[in-house]
């Protein structure tokens, strides 16, 4: 599972980084005479409603998906880990505030808050990143807070404190490393979530704006042609599903790998 997931993710990264140079087609070039043309040798995934090469758009849209995933996971992982560690280690008022904010944000199911935020802020890539980060950091914070609560009581942490280590040093050297394996697993699953989130927002017309290709908006464009040109819907969907599956496999594999019970 770990290897399968890793292979898919590495392939996807390679395809979207190198792919646009290998495939000799401009993702925004329109050939109106060939609009909705089905797959051929020249255009393996066919052409879309404006006669643009779907393969080129998928490769280029992959860059957006991966970039969103990396930015969202890095920022929300960093923010969530920091706040979770502070809340769990110091407890008291810091914990009270962080925990209440987590409670409120978790009261919004899934993507709903992200949809709401982008709806009022206006559709754009930056707002998508912002919205997905706002809902994303909570998971890390809750996870790390739990680890920090337990780590606080560990003997070597108390020993470090007795020896006069600063709270900063204890957090960085002793508390966060304990939580790190779970954070890594959560990050892989978070990448899957961010890819789906970006695609869902773009599908609803709230994400990346045309003509920049995004898998979600490609699917949304395909809906009008579901009867006469199903390939518009098929290929971007496969791209999303495969990449998300890759991250999910990777996350599951990492979780099994990091599980101490497995090695016992």
């Amino acid at each position, binding site marked *: 599972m770990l290897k399968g997931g890793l292979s898919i993710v590495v392939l996807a990264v390679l395809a979207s980084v190198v792919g646009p140079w290998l495939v000799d087609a401009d993702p925004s070039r329109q050939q109106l005479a060939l609009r909705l043309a089905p797959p051929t040798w020249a255009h393996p995934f066919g052409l879309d409603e404006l006669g643009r090469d779907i393969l080129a758009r998928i490769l280029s849209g992959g860059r957006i998906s991966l970039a969103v995933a990396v930015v969202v996971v890095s920022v929300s992982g960093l923010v969530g880990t920091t706040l979770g560690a502070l809340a769990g280690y110091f407890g008291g008022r810091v914990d009270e505030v962080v925990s*209440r904010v987590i409670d409120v944000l978790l009261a919004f199911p899934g*993507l709903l808050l992200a949809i*709401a935020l982008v709806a009022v802020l206006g559709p754009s890539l930056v707002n998508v990143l912002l919205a997905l980060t706002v809902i994303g950091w909570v998971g890390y914070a809750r996870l790390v807070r739990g680890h920090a609560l337990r780590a606080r009581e560990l003997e070597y942490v108390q020993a470090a404190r007795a020896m006069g280590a600063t709270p900063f040093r204890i957090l960085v050297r002793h508390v966060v490393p304990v939580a790190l394996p779970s954070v890594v697993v959560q990050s892989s699953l978070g990448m899957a979530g961010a890819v789906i989130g970006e695609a*869902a927002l773009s599908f*609803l017309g709230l994400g990346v704006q045309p003509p920049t290709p995004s898998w979600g908006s490609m699917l949304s464009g395909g*809906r009008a042609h*579901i009867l006469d040109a199903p390939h518009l819907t098929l290929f971007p969907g496969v791209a999303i599903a495969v990449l998300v*599956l890759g991250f999910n496999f990777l996350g599951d594999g990492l979780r099994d790998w990091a599980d101490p019970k497995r090695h016992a």
Partner: protein
Amino acid sequence: MRYFLRRLLLTVPVLLGVATLVFSLLHLVPGDPAQAMLGEGATPAEVADLRARLGLDQPIYRQYLRFMGGAVRGDLGRSFRTKQPVGEAIVERLPATVELAVSAMVVAVLVAIPLGIVAAVHAGRWVDHTATTSALIGISVPAFWLGPLLAIVFSVSLGWFPVSGRGTLAHLVLPAITLGAPLAAVLTRITRASVLEELGEIYVVAARARGASRMRAIVGHAVRNGLIPIVTVVGLQTGAVLTGAVITETIFAWPGVGRLLVQSIGFRDYPLVQGCILFIAAAYVSMNLLVDMAYGFLDPRIRYE
């Protein structure tokens, strides 16, 4: 009783926080929300009029108190576009969403529980691998792809079900499967893990030793206990179902609250957007509360923690 009361009281600050966040949404609109709603062509008089109607000309604490007071009474203001009370618009669409959500959950439970049990009983064999792999695929396939895909196969090619709309049972099939699939995938995994754990318990072995058949030991003992966490997960997945409904209703033109939300975003009908968001979040919080209470009821140990 104290457990239930405490759990209920813990929900109040969360709901207050949710309402505060929803209130602030309108103030996150870049520039003047009234101008944004009316568009560039509006006269200053029209903008001023709408500002007054939305209460935007009042000091912020007044606006906040007015919003919170209204929310408590179920008065969420009026739609900017249709002038219909927001609460009324939501209630009108609610039966469609409930119908879709419940059908999706029924589909998911009917598929996932037998599949999860079979996978657990045959753990490590090909049935198990097939079930767990399809579950992971089910989690990875987004609704906004599965929906159109099902429509291509079952509506366009086979002509079995209508592509969109609501009315007959046939209209319900594809949306319910689309919305239920990810839930089924999650449930399959949980059922498998939960039943697998119970199968190894000493009481299951004891039942077999007392002469119970394999089937009876599995269904009568392991599955019965394994189902407790499954009940919770079904309840907790309401959130995913509610969010999924926003997408699924958009795909199949299903006239529910989710589609109302997406449409009102398109029209920049912010009071309606706020109302839908607040309503969905409140429904989710209430559902979680019910699940927690049911759990405390099913498992007395929880109450004394």
